[in-house]
Each structure stands twice: as structure tokens, then as C-alpha cells.
């Protein structure tokens, strides 16, 4: 799998900014002209990035994490008629995802139909580690999960969380790089801050 090759090629941790730059220059020695020019011109900003401490973390079993927020990227082959069913189901939801709100640990998610409707690309940003995240779905919204994942090949059902987790992990491809703008906020904390923001505005209004 792509991830295994990538891990083997990953530079060792603990390199200085200068050493990282040296590696980058070697990597880009045979890059297209646009890339080599960008390396020269973008050096000041780039050095800040290379000098910063590492923010790359793992989401446990599989996937990348930054702070409290993890990523899951998965390609799932459709069963016969699965793409049509899932597309119809998603259209009828009209953008309403009470189930995801109910789970509470989902930041965002996208459903993309790829390779001529033979596969689903599902990508999400969520709180915490892989195992508790999937377990949460299994205990809170097993029916919603089965309604969409039954359209994918080999899905064992959310009532068997252990098999469901193995099935998901098997199809998942870990991101090589993952960026979150507010990595220290869980979805719940962000919602709470929205309420704090409103309360503060009210307070300021009252003391006018």
C-alpha cells in the first residue's frame, strides 16, 4: 500500500531546519522549473516551517491526527446498485445530518462518487482516535451507518463493531499530511464556544 512505501521514505525525526532544507533541495534538484524557482523564492517562509516543531501525530490504529482532530480517508467499492441507492438516499437527506450531530465528534465529512460510480470516497475530520470514534458510531447511530454502508462491498454491519472497524481500517488510506486550523478544538468545544460568543455579545450589550 502507498502508506507503507511512504513510511519507509519518511525522513528521520530530529533533523535541524538546515538539514531539512538540504534534504528538500536534494529532492527538488530534478523538479520542474516552477518548483525549483518556488524553493528559492519561498525560502523565508519555508525556513519557518522547517524550524517549527513537528505537528504530525497518529490517530491510533490508522490515520493522521493534528492536536485533537484526526482524519479518515477511505475508498469503498459499491455493491451492485449501491451507488444509485446511496446517491438517492443522500439526496433525500437534503444536507440534514442529525445523526452526525448526535454523535458529536464529527467536524466534517464528504461523500464523493469516484471511478464511474464504482467506488465511494468518504473523507472525514473527527475528534480523537480511530477505535473510540468508530465505536461511538456503532453505539449511537448503528442504523444510520448500516443504511449507507450496506451499499458497499463486504460491509459486516455496525452491530459487529470489531469486524466493522477491521473492514474500515482495511480500506482506509492514511493521509501523508494533514492540517487542521484550530487543532485544539473538538467539535463539541467549538459548539460551546459559539454559545460563549453569543453570551458575551449579550453581556456586552447589556452593560452597553
Amino acid at each position, binding site marked *: 500500500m*502507498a*502508506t507503507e*512505501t*511512504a513510511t519507509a521514505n519518511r525522513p528521520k525525526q530530529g533533523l535541524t531546519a538546515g538539514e531539512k532544507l538540504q534534504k528538500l533541495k536534494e529532492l*527538488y534538484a530534478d*523538479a*520542474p522549473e*516552477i*518548483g525549483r*524557482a*518556488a*524553493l528559492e*523564492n*519561498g525560502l523565508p*517562509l*519555508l525556513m519557518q516551517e522547517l524550524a517549527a516543531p513537528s505537528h504530525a501525530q497518529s490517530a491510533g490504529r490508522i490515520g*493522521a491526527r493534528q492536536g485533537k482532530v484526526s*482524519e479518515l*480517508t477511505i475508498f469503498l467499492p459499491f455493491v451492485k446498485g449501491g451507488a444509485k441507492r446511496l*446517491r438517492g438516499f*443522500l*439526496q433525500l*437527506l437534503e*444536507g440534514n*445530518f442529525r445523526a*452526525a*450531530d448526535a454523535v458529536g465528534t*464529527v*467536524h*466534517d*465529512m*464528504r*461523500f*464523493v*462518487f*469516484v471511478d464511474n460510480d464504482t467506488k465511494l*470516497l468518504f*473523507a472525514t*475530520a473527527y475528534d480523537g482516535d480511530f477505535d473510540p470514534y468508530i465505536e461511538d458510531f456503532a453505539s449511537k447511530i448503528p442504523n444510520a451507518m448500516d443504511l449507507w454502508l450496506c451499499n458497499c462491498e463486504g460491509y459486516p454491519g455496525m452491530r459487529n463493531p470489531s469486524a466493522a472497524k477491521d473492514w474500515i481500517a482495511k480500506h482506509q*488510506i*492514511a*493521509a*501523508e*499530511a*494533514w*492540517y487542521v*486550523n*484550530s487543532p*485544539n*478544538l473538538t*467539535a463539541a468545544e*467549538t*459548539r*460551546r*464556544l*459559539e454559545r*460563549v*460568543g453569543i453570551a*458575551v455579545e449579550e453581556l456586552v450589550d447589556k452593560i452597553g
Partner: protein
Amino acid sequence: MRFVFLDNDTRLLFATAYDGDWDTYIDDFATKIPDAMDLLFCNLDGWPGINSPQAKDFIAGFQIPADTWYVASPNLTVAETKHLEKIGAAVEEFLDKIS
């Protein structure tokens, strides 16, 4: 944003969540961090450079729109979330002081 290497390192999946509309978003990258963009995307077949008039067509040509897209706090921009983090910290400090 996520960078995922696919199909035996022959393709890149790039997926991101951003504020506002498509055109403005790409314009912003071109103005603010053109070099960072070119460093990343010069590795892709046919990348014309972020300053090229063809850059947007290149991106749009490869983009696959999501059928469905969910966001937990859809009314917050990145800047608003960061602002709320500061308000949250200030409120905690305030409560500490009056307790």
C-alpha cells in the same frame, strides 16, 4: 486539508474544507502563498504554476464535487473560530478573577 497518495504513488488525493467561494479561495492562495503552492503542485502532471491564468482551470478540471458535504459548525469561518478561541480564553480568565 489532507494529502493522500493513491494508486501506487501515481496520483494525489487532495481534499480541503475552506471558507467561502471557490474562485476567491484559489485567488487567495495565488496572492498570499504562491511559492508554497508551486512547491506542492509542481509535482503534478501539467501544473501550469499558480500565477498562470490556467491554474484555476487545471484545478477545476481535476476536481470531483462531493455529492454530500457535512460541517459540524457551518456558520463559523476559520477566522471566527480563532476569534472565539480567544473569547473563550478571556471569559475563563474573567470568571477566575471574579470567583
